[in-house]
């Protein structure tokens, strides 16, 4: 009985994580500018991975494996947003027309400090 409950929880988490990742991939292909694409990709990087790893944590055979998986979540949550930030920063530094490309209103007051 307990095994079944655990299996169902794992499956639910993994499925929601996978659907998150699929959404992210569709978004990456749907948009055609890097800053827009990153917005979609970040979903998969954070929430999708979180769901997948929580699912694996639930199904882990012992407590130490579960703790290691939680550590991996911490690492990914620290590292992947920073990676996205660096990509966005490079784009904003090197491309002066990013306002038009994103379709955002250019805010004259807010200077991008690079």
């Amino acid at each position, binding site marked *: 009985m307990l095994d079944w409950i655990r299996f169902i929880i794992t499956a639910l988490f993994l499925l929601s994580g996978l659907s998150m990742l699929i959404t992210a991939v569709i978004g990456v292909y749907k948009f055609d500018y890097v800053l827009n694409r990153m917005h979609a990709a970040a979903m998969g990087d954070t929430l999708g991975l979180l769901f997948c790893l929580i699912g694996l944590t639930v199904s882990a055979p012992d407590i130490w494996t579960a703790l290691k998986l939680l550590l991996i979540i911490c690492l990914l949550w*620290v*590292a992947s947003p*920073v990676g996205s*930030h*660096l990509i966005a*920063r490079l784009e904003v*530094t*090197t491309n002066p027309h990013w306002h038009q490309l994103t379709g955002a209103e250019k805010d004259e007051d807010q200077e991008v400090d690079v």
Partner: protein
Amino acid sequence: MSKRRSDWQNRPQERFVRWMREGYLALDEAIEDSVLQPGEAPPEVDPELAAQHQEAALQHRHDRDLALDRLAQYDLYAWTLTKGRRLIGRLHVLLSLLLGGMIIFFLLGTVAHMPRFGAADVPANNEVITRYIEQGLAETGATNMVAGMILDYRAFDTLGESTVLFIAACAVLILLRIDLDDKGQPTQQLIAEESDDRHYEPKNDRILQGTAILLTPILLLFGLYVILNGHLSPGGGFSGGAIVSSGLILYLNAFGFKKAGRFFSYKTFQWVSFGALGFYGVAKAYSFYCGANGLESHIPLGTPGAILSGGLIMPLNIAVGLVVACTMYIFYALFRKGGL
């Protein structure tokens, strides 16, 4: 009538060309017909005048051909922008699907033909594997059987791999390094690269620096753990070296070449790689020499499972890890701006 009306016009190539030009030939034909309209016999004219007229007609025809050629080229260009692009795009999708399907088919077929997991009668299950499994722990002293294999039984192979890494780093160094000129002054290219890098580098990025402060020590420690524990648990020189170098690269990204250069320069790379490879070669030469001649090598194997065990495996892991870390770091630095 005219020569163009003969049968070659209805060949598939011509029809394709006509389809491509989309009605261009109708215009062509109209011009052609009007020019070559059969009339009554030409009246008598002055031969000089006739020659002049003929020349003018030839010139006119040449100009017209040229113009038509240009038109055809323009049409072809327009075709590549509209129909052609669609056609190539569809072809691309079709070929990608075919390729993907073929790969899936063959991989699944291969998997379906593989022996069952753990079956006793697979060809790989021979006396070599039996020997590794039964005698490996006693002969190498390493709990991690893979480390015992790659750094003891097949250590020569691993030396070759490390040397390949070193040679690759040297080749990249030769190709990409932007050096000082003959007088020791920085060249124009070096200055340009430097300013470019300063411009694009995430310099003094608070977020990245905070992350680097948090993660670099963890990465370095974890890499060292993987290297030093290579004979006890999965891991070893190659993976640990990659982790260490990722920590170094993170530090370099966050704090720039100036700070990273304080602990890693070309000299460091030279001496660490040379020392590690030299130590590896000497140690393994000694061990092979003793083993081949039936001598006692006096390298204690220790108790299996302890951190100081496995004979030469741990020092060799350290050597491999150093080479891998240095190589990956210098690859990154050279590809980024051509120098340290």
